[in-house]
């Protein structure tokens, strides 16, 4: 395209305004400040693209880890059911599955890990040390991430069944009795009144918050029905 009109130095030809811009006029020296602007725009574009990639990567990584780990843990759980104890899902893990939690109505099936520190919660819901074993007498507290494993807690309703498979293969069935929001320092949630068979599921609140680390927790309480069956 080399019409006269597309002369790079002129925006008009013989007093007539040209169709603009001229696509092949890159190499004509533009004023200095325009070049700087142009370069910074390119730099911004490149940086934003990189940032976008890395952020998506991190978000994806969190979900990928949560998902991949559960697969590995399922194998460790099979060994646990077969009689081994404290089976590590991968050789250097510092946690192990202690129970399998399922909510049949929601199609949820999760392996619960020992310990509720950030390290193990990334891989699965964690059983809080010092509370009763899942399925055992007392109050068993399990924490999980509201945006990965425990996202379903937002939708559960009172009366729904929660099943806990213990390392012995026995299954304890609980019914959800209560959902509430508490402050993270409200350790009354961890208390174990005598003669209770309780399962307490804890996750962060609100569910749609962007960042982790808020002070509120969503607590779902379920009481055992008493009936235990062997698989």
């Amino acid at each position, binding site marked *: 395209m080399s019409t006269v009109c597309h002369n790079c130095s002129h925006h008009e030809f013989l007093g007539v305004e040209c169709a603009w811009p001229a696509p092949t006029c890159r190499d004509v020296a533009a004023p200095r400040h325009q070049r700087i602007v142009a*370069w910074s725009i390119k730099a911004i574009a490149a940086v934003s693209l990189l940032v*976008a990639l890395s952020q*998506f990567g991190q*978000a*994806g990584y969190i979900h990928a880890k949560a998902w991949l780990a559960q697969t590995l843990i399922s194998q460790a759980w099979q060994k646990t059911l077969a009689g081994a104890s404290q089976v590590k899902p991968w050789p250097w893990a*510092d946690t192990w599955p202690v129970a399998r939690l399922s909510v049949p109505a929601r199609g949820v099936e999760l392996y619960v890990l020992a310990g509720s520190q950030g390290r193990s919660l990334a891989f699965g819901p964690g059983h809080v040390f010092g509370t009763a074993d899942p399925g055992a007498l007392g109050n068993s507290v399990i924490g999980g*991430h509201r945006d990965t494993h425990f996202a379903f807690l937002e939708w559960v309703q009172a009366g729904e069944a929660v099943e806990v498979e213990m390392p012995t293969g026995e299954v304890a069935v609980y019914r959800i009795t209560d959902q509430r929001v508490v402050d*993270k320092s409200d350790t009354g949630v961890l208390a174990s009144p005598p003669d209770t068979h309780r399962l307490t599921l804890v996750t962060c609140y609100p569910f749609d918050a962007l960042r982790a680390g808020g002070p509120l*927790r969503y607590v779902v309480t379920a009481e055992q029905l008493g009936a235990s069956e062997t698989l």
Partner: protein
Amino acid sequence: MTPAPLGLRDRAREVAELLARLLLMFITGLGVSLALGAVVLLLAGPAQAASREDGSVQQGTLLFRGADGGDPVAAPLLHTDVTLRVSGPIVRAKVVQRFRNPADDWREGTYVFPLPENAAVDRMRIQVADRVIEGEIQARAQAQATYEKAKAEGKATALVSQERPNIFTTRVANIGPRDEIRVEIEYQHTLDYAVAEGVGRYSLRFPMVVAPRYIPGKVIADEESGATTGTDVVPDAAAILPPMMLPDEAGPIINPVSLNVYLDAGVPIASVDSPFHRVRVDTLKPSVRRIRLSEGRTPANRDFVLNWTLAAGTAPSATLFVEPGKDRDHALLMLVPPAPSAVGKRLPREVVYIIDTSGSMEGESIVQAREALAMALARLDAEDRFNVIEFNSTASALYTSAQPASRANVDHAVRWVQRLRANGGTEMAGALALALDGGRNADRVRQIVFLTDGAVGNEAQLFGMIQQRLGDSRLFTVGIGSAPNSHFMRKAAQAGRGTFTYIGKIEEVRARMSELFTKLESPVVKGLTITWPSGARADASPDPLPDLYLGEPVVVAAAIDRTVGGEVRLSGDAGDIRWTSSLALGDANPGEGMGVLWARQKIDHWMDTLADGADEAVVRKQVLALALEFQLVSKFTSFVAVDKTPARSADARLQSGAVPGHFPAGWSPSGVVGELPQGATDARWHLLLGLMALAAFFLTRTPRVRQLSMKG
């Protein structure tokens, strides 16, 4: 003519392109993340090399809430005035607890408080209005009954009992409306003394706060009331965990302490230092100081420590006190053996470091511990071997077995240590089981350096375990934080035949750890024996004498028959030479309260035999006899005082409350009281940031901006 508008087709193409790009980006992101996930899962965290393989993980309780005593709101207010009189190596203390009732009803208060772990509490009295009533030592259950009876009869009464050698409880009943009852407690103990490079250094510690402690075991509840009293491992947990005011709910100082020290060192003092409280020091004489807290009333949230060094060349190397008694005299001997000379070839060491990463260490403590450990690792020689164990609810070791302290290994360990975070329970038994193998090996010196705040309630169980599994290892405890459980530290070190070092703040880490390492690297004074003059029929404690580390004095308390004179002779092996020191009984300084110190040591000795599996009934009988004779508070005896005049009429109600304590300074409440697990990730945040960056990218691709960028 204006620029030609884009056609509909072009616009559609633009949108399609944008969508395609978005999709591509998403797929790339997902791919990258999956790959990253897989890589990290496969490679990350090789640090966890080993963990406790034996047995299952024990479950414990993070914290008991509301010990007996009930509602803190109903508790009387409390002020504590402390006067400490130091003379030479001994301190005599008077603690006055003023319980004031701010309301118009009648009140009962319970206050759980700490005292030094070797305090011999030998006097108690109460003051009601202008009447002073001397307390009386009774067997624990009997004292309790006396108190309950007086309480029911409406008489002003107080009971002081011991829950642990360093935790006591005062109960005061029938404090009248807007009235006050003063409870005075007196005790005595010997000071910590060490000689380093010819300079004598004393250390005095007055604990101010009972830190929350981890209680392992299964919870047991009282059958009648249903209240939780303890666990199968720590049955009296409720008694050692007073209600606690967290920093944000305490508001003003809830139980202020005023403190005065009258310090008479006997010899000129070079320097006085209070590392944790600001003090005013008045010099009365070269050897006498008066020390007061400069802020007057201070919250009882961290231990008060006072160190003083003696002028060079004046450090006493031997002191003997004798107090004439009714039947027998009592003597206290303190002697620093000559520094041992190095013997032969230095044996390679195997050092196992244990670091407590439980919730109570969260805050300043874990920082101090990490720092101390990094320093300790740097001190290792290439021919030494080492390992690091961390524990909270479970214990895990850096290496499956001790590794040579090569540069690479040490660097690896330091990095591992820097990553440690504190949370969870304090299951010490697991860590001790990993570290103490019970083995004996003459070719190496095996030392265990244990960094902890000792915030546990199952001390007795752990001492037993240390004794059984020690073998030829030596256990050195390093107390961390503003209020470590020094009873545990000292006794664990004693059971482990090592020493106890206390680090109270980060600035002290370097100095204290160097001191400890000088001790670890120096030969030990062994085979100490003491010979009393014939006919003295000495009953001395401790017996046999422990090995001593560099600069440590041997402290012996004894009951002896009155003898005309003669010499006490002390000898031991210092390196390859045997030395002997002797002191004439006739030259002894007159001392006060030596009998009490002796009785306290004997009681300690009897209580220690419990860890060896001695019969509790026998121990009880011995301790009871000693405690009643010397008027001492012990596990089996309590002080009780009753005002004879009834004050409260039978129809006025008595409100009971437990006086709350402060939370230890520098501790992090979330680490101890526990927090509900954090249930969220930053995935969404990353997604948002990603979207924003993506939007910014597309902004640079709009035709307008693109055109600008074309001009480059």
